[in-house]
């Protein structure tokens, strides 16, 4: 305790850093604004009526973004832009979707029935085939950013969309393989991604077994009294922030159940399936229902240089049903109107099939899927040529996508963040949103 109130420990950065060490993450703010939601017992009973009522409460708090990141680079030809019967098309057929005239790969039968709630961009030309660069570009909206130059989309959404007093992390990564947490760059550690590794609660959010609840309460009371005594003589903004961080952490510990997907009904767990990605999609629904502004779920892996078709059967076989169930649930629960969903990768895969039945890295003509919030539904933006080797209409890239996602959740993407005396454009000023995709 003496160290935590050491008057020499003055910098906000140090305070935040120590908070991160103590609690395993540093991206939460405000008071326990969702305590009431926790009190509703969301997910414990799985009751739709209760969930809908809570969804109305959550909607009042702001819009949210869900990114499903298919790590390694999903093949657009085996997913959103099939080219059957061509030299590049591979063995799978195209199937109709719930949008007349729009087809997707036969590997996505459940998702096909949700396409009237989603839109496809088939004209991404990101001119990149490097994994790390692709991850950074797609999630920062900038061209070739250095690792810490620009904040991850999650940090931007957490900063712009978290309601006042929101006490859960605003930027959560449910990591099932793939890359790590997104950087918050100049926005500060408060908005950095909090990782739920393999869907487990963030580290250090449980009271140690050796510490009884009563001892914990008394310890907190002692800290509070010492803080008050110190503040009475040498109160500063930094000490206030420090004190607040502890209060926030305590609030968060009270809400640890939010991260526990096993509290969802058995029926829902069965609907989403027993495998990892199914559990993670259900966890994403739970986090969104509790108002978390940005959730990213990684699904790994799609880097199929070898036996692309076998692996896409396996991976998209995992992806399809839980994702479709999630879209259906968000719709039924009234959350899709305020939740923007994006399925992206770092790039697509080559139209050319290599001599090992694989497809390689390809950023020249590929696809992403978006839906919900302020976006058109059932649209197809852009077009590739007959065998998918080039964009023929409406080329766009990560910069346009970044603007579009932010605009879709009501953020002025041409605005700026004012941080530490400097203005930082929220998105690439040289780009703009895909206007025809905005509702």
């Amino acid at each position, binding site marked *: 305790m003496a160290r935590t109130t050491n008057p020499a420990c003055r910098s906000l950065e140090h305070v935040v850093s120590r908070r991160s060490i103590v609690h395993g993450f540093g991206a939460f703010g405000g008071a326990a604004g969702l305590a009431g939601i926790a009190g509703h017992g969301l997910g414990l009973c799985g009751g739709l009526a209760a969930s809908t009522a809570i969804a109305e409460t959550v909607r009042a708090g702001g819009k949210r973004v869900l990114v499903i990141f298919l790590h*390694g680079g999903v093949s657009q030809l085996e997913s959103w832009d099939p080219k*059957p*019967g*061509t*030299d590049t*098309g*591979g*063995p*799978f*057929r195209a199937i109709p979707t719930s949008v007349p005239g729009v087809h997707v790969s036969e590997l996505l039968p459940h998702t096909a029935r949700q396409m009237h709630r989603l839109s496809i961009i088939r004209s991404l030309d990101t001119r990149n085939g490097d994994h790390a660069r692709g991850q950074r570009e797609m999630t920062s909206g900038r061209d070739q950013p250095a690792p810490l130059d620009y904040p991850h989309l999650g940090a931007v959404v957490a900063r712009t969309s978290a309601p006042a007093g929101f006490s859960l992390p605003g930027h959560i990564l449910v990591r*099932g*393989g793939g890359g790590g947490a997104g950087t918050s760059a100049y926005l500060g550690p408060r908005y950095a991604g909090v990782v739920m590794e393999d869907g487990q609660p963030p580290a250090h959010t449980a009271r140690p077994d050796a510490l009884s609840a009563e001892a914990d309460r008394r310890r907190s009371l002692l800290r509070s009294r010492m803080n008050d005594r110190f503040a009475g003589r040498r109160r500063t903004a930094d000490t206030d922030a420090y004190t607040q961080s502890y209060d926030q952490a305590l609030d968060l510990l009270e809400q640890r159940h939010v991260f526990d997907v096993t509290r969802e009904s058995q029926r829902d767990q069965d609907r989403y399936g027993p495998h*990892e990605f199914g559990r993670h999609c259900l966890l994403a629904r739970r986090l969104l229902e509790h108002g978390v502004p940005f959730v990213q779920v990684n699904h*790994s*892996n799609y*880097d*199929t*240089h*070898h*036996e692309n*078709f*076998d*692996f896409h*059967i*396996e*991976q998209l076989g995992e992806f399809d049903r839980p994702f479709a169930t999630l879209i259906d649930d968000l719709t039924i629960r009234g959350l899709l109107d305020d939740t923007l969903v994006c399925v992206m990768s770092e790039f697509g895969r080559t139209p050319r*099939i290599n*001599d*090992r039945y*694989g497809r390689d890295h390809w950023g020249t003509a590929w696809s992403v899927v978006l839906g919900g919030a302020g976006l058109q539904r059932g649209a197809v933006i852009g077009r590739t040529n*007959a*065998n998918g080797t080039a964009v023929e209409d409406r080329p766009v890239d990560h910069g346009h996508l970044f603007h579009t996602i932010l605009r879709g959740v009501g953020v002025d993407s041409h605005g700026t963040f004012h941080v530490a005396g400097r203005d930082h454009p929220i998105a690439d000023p040289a780009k703009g949103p895909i206007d025809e995709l905005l509702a």
Partner: protein
Amino acid sequence: MSESPAIDPTKIREVLAHKHGRPLVSCCWDPRDRFICFGAENSAAEGYDDLLFRLALASAGTPDAVVPCTGGHDSWAWSLAIAPDGATLVSGGYDGRLCWYDLAAAAPRAARAIAAHDGWVRCVRISPDGRWVASCGNDRLVRVWNVADGSEVSRLSGHESHVYHVAWRPDGSALVSCDLKGVVKEWDAAGGACRRDLATAAPLWTYDKQFRADIGGARAMTFRADGAQLALGGMTKVTNAFAGVGQPLVVVLDWTGGEPRLVEAKNSGNGVTWGVAWHPAGFWIGLAGGGGGGWLRFFKPDAADDFHAFKLPANGRCMALAPDATRVAVGMADGSLRVYALHA
């Protein structure tokens, strides 16, 4: 009647190179030595009729030597089998269908197409007596059909992952199957019961923890002529499933039990064993293809290594032995079908 040449794999030489153009995915040699049939990745130019072909060996090299086998699949014809009398070709495709063709017809067209599996048909094999055709696929089923009329004989369930290959014991007494995880089952083909699980070919399967995916399965499987051994081809020691970093492997199982014997391709680089055949001169032939290029490998039943390996000009994807065992055909990723003589 001419005398058969002395078989010597070390004298292997190319005797035919048919340039099809599109990469090949399957091939099968007519038991009457008239044709080789092959499946190819489809192309925009020819649409769905550009999937399965018949090459007449007698006229190879002439414009009329190759004709398409039409009207069956709308996806790649992944596995082919020809009845022992040479009358019927049966193909299985990614589209889940089995298709029947009159092999000797001037323009073969599917006489029958049935929805055999939910998803990819990975293998078709006709019984030694020519009565039945067994198929397997991603629906985890093995199914047995009458060759004569396409009616179902039995449906064999019990595998817990995609079924990659089937093989008939040469005396027709048993049907075996192998799945993604190397589980090998012996079936009563008529009755539908699983008789036993053979020693598992587990070295053929890996769960890649980094990429979070399974890789494995028998990509080839066949019996020794006397039925005493079963050889399964695939990949082992996988360190990067998605880049295909692993060793081509043949697993040899004794029919009467015992531990499996592993024959790795030690000198052919990364890849998969895509074909395996027993040669009546007393050795196995394996076809390896992958990052290390294409190789034909030759090894004895009791050996742990090749006694000869032959580098192919491109990755091999499928292999068929001629009925007189003097030649072997390889379908390649470069769009060629090449035939090699196994003698001087």
